[in-house]
């Protein structure tokens, strides 16, 4: 299956950047994650390849600042896919090293030439660890 050129270029950009990045298709399937994102997911892209939406969302459990689980619909990547608008929020995960991590995530939809909806991209920043 041929990837759209905008998605290909997004992957190539992501592979050069030092912040964790996820790229998903319009159905939420994880098409690519870069090396910094591998540290969050705990697995290498070369080993997993693409991941269905239902699978990758369960790899870590996001919570709010009080530790209450977040519904998938509250996650920025899902919001960006659903509304086709950018979304941002803070959340917390327990990392593979057992530490609780504060993450800031910005997601935005990808709209290509001729208005083609191609999916969404999310960028992660690590906040205070507590």
């Amino acid at each position, binding site marked *: 299956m041929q990837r759209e050129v905008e998605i290909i270029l997004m992957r*190539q950009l992501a592979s050069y950047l030092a912040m964790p990045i996820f790229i998903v298709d319009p159905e939420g399937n994880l098409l690519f994650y870069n090396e910094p994102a591998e540290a969050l997911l705990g697995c290498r892209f070369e080993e997993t390849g693409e991941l269905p939406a239902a699978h990758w969302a369960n790899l870590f459990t996001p919570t709010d600042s009080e530790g209450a689980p977040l519904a998938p619909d509250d996650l920025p990547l899902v919001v960006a896919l659903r509304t086709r608008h950018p979304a941002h929020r803070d959340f917390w995960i327990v990392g593979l090293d057992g530490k609780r991590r504060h993450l800031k995530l910005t997601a935005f939809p990808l709209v290509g030439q001729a208005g083609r909806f191609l999916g969404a991209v999310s960028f992660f920043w690590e906040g205070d660890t507590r």
Partner: protein
Amino acid sequence: MRVKLWGTRGSLPTPGPDTSRFGGNTSCVEVRADDNSVLVLDAGTGIRNLGRTIPGTTSRVDVLISHLHMDHIQGMGFFAPFYVPGLEVHIWGPASPLETLRARLGRYMSPPLFPVRLRDLPCNLTVHEVPSGSMRIGPFEVETTLVCHPGPTVGYRITEGNRSLAYLPDHEPALGVRGPLLGNGWTSGQTLATDVDLLIHDAQYTDAQYDDRVGWGHTTFSRAVEFAELARARRLVLFHHDPDHDDATLASLVSTLVKNERPAMPVTAGFEGEVFDL
């Protein structure tokens, strides 16, 4: 299906004795079906000579533009069929996010760059925009996909019966790729070129040239071969020759390429007037 190269040069027309073997006209390729239907790929300066061979009895001509860089549209105003009253002419090409294809073409086909406006051409002109997808033009099945090159750019795959051609004259599939080209559809243009009988592909730069021109939208000789092998093309014609590569240089580069890379398919540098019967 018969394919004829009318312009093989990239970037800038390069006439003169040093380029007479491979040619100095910019991108233009004729594709002729068994029933004599004609597709014209790009409107570089090579289109002028092509236009003079199209008989007055022709009822329809289709011009497929890959993108609107000047070397791909510069010959448009000198294409004889445009000036045949009532002749059905269709131009196909990519739009931009902000302007229609007709408006963008009109920027060149209007004063002060050109004296004749697009709307003043006496032919019966229709302009079509081609996002990704398939379409049928006469006996041809035409597939288009946006490909990696600065600005909206499409590649074409043209099929008649069981014969196929892929045309990717300006293409940088290796942009940002540090190792081998990626499979599984992760390389720009791959599906268009998969299993084609003839692949006409950008090969403007040597490896040394490319180091200073990453992101300019073109390919090296060796990456063109790698792309053709990834797509399992049956024949590769190198295209969009660099204006600085005269005949002797180009012949030497291709000879070295074939010797070193040992491509899985025949690889040659396209030359003006070359014909392929598929």
